[in-house]
């Protein structure tokens, strides 16, 4: 079963790095970095894994 798509969020402004899921990514893109308030673009997110084989 596919896990939820996960991303690594790297804020280009403050350097914060967080593992986030899709809904967090959407919220961050809409509201800006939760830590520093900077606006974000999709480049701040890197897809990590959506297929965990266990």
């Amino acid at each position, binding site marked *: 079963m596919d896990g939820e798509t996960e991303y690594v969020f790297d804020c280009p402004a*403050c*350097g914060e790095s967080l593992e986030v899921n899709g809904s967090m990514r959407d919220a*961050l893109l809409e*509201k*800006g970095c*939760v830590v520093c308030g900077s606006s974000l673009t999709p480049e701040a997110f890197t897809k990590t894994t959506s297929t965990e084989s266990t």
Partner: protein
Amino acid sequence: MSLGPQTELSREETDAFLGERETGVLSLALDNEPYAVPVSYGYDAGARKFYLRLVSTPESEKRRFLASTPQARLVVYEEEGDVYRSVVVVGRLEEIARDELTVEHVEQYGEAKRPLFEIWGQAKRDLDIKLYQLVPEQVTGRRIAVDRGDDAPKS
């Protein structure tokens, strides 16, 4: 100048006031030492919680006070024409760990977007930005009308 009657704000008025304002003065204490700093905040009226970003550097006073006690007061006030309104919040300051962050937090901090006082003079990378929620134990709102036409000296 004379003061008109002071009235207490209702819960609805208090929430509306806190929602439309976005800055206040946060006070902390360490033993007998007070500490106060202007902050911007986001306010969730439903949960009655405040969301704050507090910035410190290793040598800053703020860090010392933040480490000491979670007890805090937040004062938000506004003078508009002849009406002066203020809200005093007494509560606990709780740090939100990065791995506890939720979509809801992102939305609330989105509302607290303007870091008016936390001037980003330094690169943001060099700052230690911590996220806090202030959970009120007591919220008191007041309104006072000031009559400025009555400035004659009184005996």
